[in-house]
C-alpha cells in the first residue's frame, strides 16, 4: 500500500491539520497546564490559530455508585434478604480536564481511584451523576453508537477478538461491525499487519495465541476503523520485556506519526515514563496532578538520586549536601537537592572526596513520586 489510510482526508477533520503534527508544546515537557486554552494555542510555534476543539472535554464530572452493604454474620445475611442498606461511593468526584488532538496522556492512580470509571463514562458505558463530558464533540452516553464508532479501545485483561475465530476472521467481522469501507479496511489492515508483524498469526484461532501475540492482535483490531481516539487500559499487563517494548514502540509511532490521540491507563509506570508527555494522576476520585512528568516530579520533590560505585567498599561516605539513603557493598545511593547544589558541582564535590569507580545521577523512580503525591494529598485531607 503506497497510500496510507492514515493520511486520507476522512481520517482527520480539517480543523486539526497543521496542529496535530506540531508536538512541540507537548514533547518538550514544558506544558503549562495553568494557561487558558487560547493561551496554550498561542504558545504553539506553528502559529496556526484555528479553533481546535479538544478531543475530550471533562468538567466537574461526578459519578456515584450505590454499593449494597453486607451486614456481618448469618443474622446480617438474613436481614439483607429483606432490606438492603446502600452506601454511596463517589468513584469520580468532580474531575475536569481537556485532552487536545495528538496528545498522549497517561492516566494513573491506584486501584479504585476512578480510572476505569472515567474511561467508562468517556466511552458511553456509564452515565455520570453530573458534570459535562464531550468526546469528539459528542455526549458519549447520549450518542453511544456514534461516539464509539470513532473510538479504539484495548483492554489488557480481556480480548475484543472472537475466541474461536482465526485472527483474520475476527478482523473481517470488525470491519462489518464498524462498517468500514472495503478499500479503507484493506489498506488499514495490511498496514497494521506489517507494523505489528502479524502475518504468521492470521490463521491462528485467538484462543491459541500467547498473551503478547494476542495483545498485538488486539491493538490491530482496535485500529482497523482508524479511530481518532484510542484508550489503552493496561496494554502491557503480563507481557514479557520484549513484547512490552514492541507495544510501547507501536503506540509511540501511532501517536507521533499518525496523530492518534491516546489515553493510557496503567500501573506500569515505565509505560508512562516511556510514552507520555502529560500525566493525569487520579486518587480517590479527584485529579491530584495534571502536567508533564517533570512537573509531577517538581511538585513532589526536586531531589535527585546519585548512585556511586566506590573503589573501597569500606570507605566512610561523607559529602556535604548529599544524604546516604542506601548502601550495598561498593554501591552507595545518595539523595541531593539540585536547587541547593547543582548536579555537576555535586559530582565534582563527591569525586574530590572519594575514589569512585562509576557514578550516575537519576530522577527518583516515578512509583515513589506517585506514592508521595498520595501521601501528601491524604495528609492534607483531615
Amino acid at each position: 500500500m503506497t497510500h496510507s489510510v492514515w493520511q486520507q482526508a476522512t481520517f482527520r477533520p480539517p480543523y486539526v491539520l497543521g496542529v496535530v503534527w506540531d508536538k512541540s508544546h507537548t514533547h518538550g515537557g514544558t506544558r503549562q497546564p495553568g494557561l487558558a486554552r487560547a493561551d496554550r494555542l498561542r504558545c504553539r510555534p506553528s502559529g496556526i490559530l484555528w479553533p481546535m476543539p479538544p478531543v475530550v472535554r471533562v468538567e466537574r464530572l461526578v459519578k456515584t455508585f450505590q454499593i449494597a452493604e453486607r451486614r456481618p454474620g448469618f443474622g446480617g445475611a438474613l436481614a439483607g434478604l429483606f432490606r438492603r442498606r446502600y452506601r454511596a461511593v463517589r468513584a469520580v468526584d468532580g474531575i475536569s480536564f481537556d485532552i487536545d488532538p495528538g496528545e498522549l496522556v497517561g492516566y494513573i492512580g491506584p486501584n479504585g481511584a476512578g480510572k476505569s470509571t472515567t474511561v467508562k463514562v468517556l466511552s458511553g458505558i456509564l452515565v455520570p451523576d453530573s458534570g459535562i463530558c464531550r468526546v469528539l464533540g459528542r455526549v458519549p452516553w447520549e450518542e453511544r453508537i456514534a461516539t464509539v464508532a470513532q473510538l479504539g479501545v484495548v483492554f489488557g485483561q480481556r480480548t475484543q477478538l472472537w475466541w474461536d475465530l482465526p485472527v483474520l476472521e475476527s478482523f473481517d467481522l470488525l470491519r462489518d461491525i464498524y462498517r468500514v469501507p472495503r478499500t479503507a479496511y484493506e489498506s488499514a489492515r495490511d498496514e497494521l499487519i506489517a507494523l505489528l508483524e502479524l502475518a504468521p498469526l492470521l490463521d491462528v484461532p485467538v484462543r491459541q495465541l500467547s498473551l503478547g501475540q494476542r495483545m498485538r492482535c488486539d491493538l490491530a483490531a482496535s485500529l482497523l476503523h482508524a479511530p481518532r481516539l484510542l484508550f489503552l487500559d493496561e496494554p502491557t499487563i503480563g507481557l514479557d520485556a520484549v513484547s512490552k517494548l514492541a507495544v510501547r514502540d507501536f503506540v509511540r509511532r501511532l501517536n507521533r506519526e499518525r496523530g492518534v490521540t491516546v489515553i493510557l491507563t496503567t500501573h506500569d509506570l515505565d509505560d508512562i515514563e516511556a510514552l507520555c508527555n502529560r500525566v493525569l494522576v487520579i486518587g480517590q476520585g479527584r485529579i491530584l496532578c495534571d502536567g508533564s512528568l517533570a512537573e509531577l516530579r517538581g511538585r513532589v520533590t526536586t531531589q535527585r538520586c546519585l548512585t556511586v560505585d566506590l573503589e573501597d567498599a569500606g570507605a566512610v561516605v561523607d559529602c556535604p549536601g548529599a544524604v546516604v539513603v542506601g548502601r550495598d557493598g561498593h554501591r552507595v545511593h545518595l539523595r541531593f537537592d539540585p536547587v541547593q547544589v547543582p548536579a555537576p558541582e555535586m559530582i565534582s564535590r563527591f569525586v574530590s572526596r572519594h575514589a569512585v569507580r562509576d557514578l550516575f545521577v537519576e530522577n527518583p523512580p516515578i512509583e515513589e513520586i506517585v506514592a508521595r503525591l498520595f501521601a501528601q494529598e491524604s495528609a492534607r485531607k483531615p
Partner: protein
Amino acid sequence: MKPYLAVVAARFRVHVQYRAAALAGAGTQLFWGLIRVMIFEAFYRSSTAVQPISMAQVASYVWLSQATFAMLPDHVEAEIRDTIRDGNVASELLRPVDIYWVWYCRCLSFTLIPTLMRCFPILLLAGLFFGLKPPPSAAAAAAAGAALLGAMLLSSAITALVSIGLLWTISGEGIARLSFAAAYLFSGMMLPLPLFPDWLRAIAVALPYHGVIDVPFRLYLGHIPPSAAPAALAAQAGWIVALVLAGRLLLKRGLTRLVVQGG
C-alpha cells in the same frame, strides 16, 4: 443490517467446526424419537377411546419436534451468560452496534445453526423408516413453512429475553432451569398439546412457547387447518413483537443499573 448478519455468519463459521457435536446431537435425538414413538404406540394401543390426534399424526409430530429440538428456547445463550458473568458487557458496549440486536442475532444463530446441522439426517431417516408422513396439502406445507420461520424468530426472542434476565442474577442457573422446564412442557415437546387436559392446554396456548413447536407442526399435519393459519401466524408474530419489545426494555433497564465488575 450488515453488522448483525456478520455476527450470525461468524457464529456459523464457529459452529460448523463442531461436526462431532452435530452428529452426536442428531444421534441422541433419533434415539429419543424412537423411544417417544414407542411410548405413544403403547399408549394408543392400550386405549380404545378416540384421541384428539391420531397415532400417525403423533408420530410425525414427534419426529418433527425431534428434528428441530435445537430450536427449543430451553436455554440461556452461553456467550451472553459468560459476557454478563465476567463483566465483558463493557466491551460489548464499546462497539457501534445496538446491543439488543447483537444479542438477538447470537440467540438466532444458536438456534438456527444447530437445527440446520441436525434436522436433515433425522428427517430423512424418520421419513424413510419411522413413520414421518409428508404434509396433506401444499397449503399445509406453506403454512407450516411460514410458521417454522416464525418459530425460529420467536424462539430467539424468548432466549434473548431470558438471557437478558441474567443481568439481575449472577449465575443464571435458576433461570436456565425454569426456562428449560417451561419450554419443554408448554411447547408440546414433551407431549403434543392436543393430548393435554383442557385446563392445561388453555394455559399452554396462552403462552408464547405454543408458537415454537405446536403451531408449526400442527399446521404441517393439517391438525390446525390451513384456513386457521393466518390467525395462528398473527398470534405468533404478535408474540415476537411483544417479546422483542420486552427484551429491549429489560436490557435498557438492566444496562442503566449495571455496574460492570472491576475498578
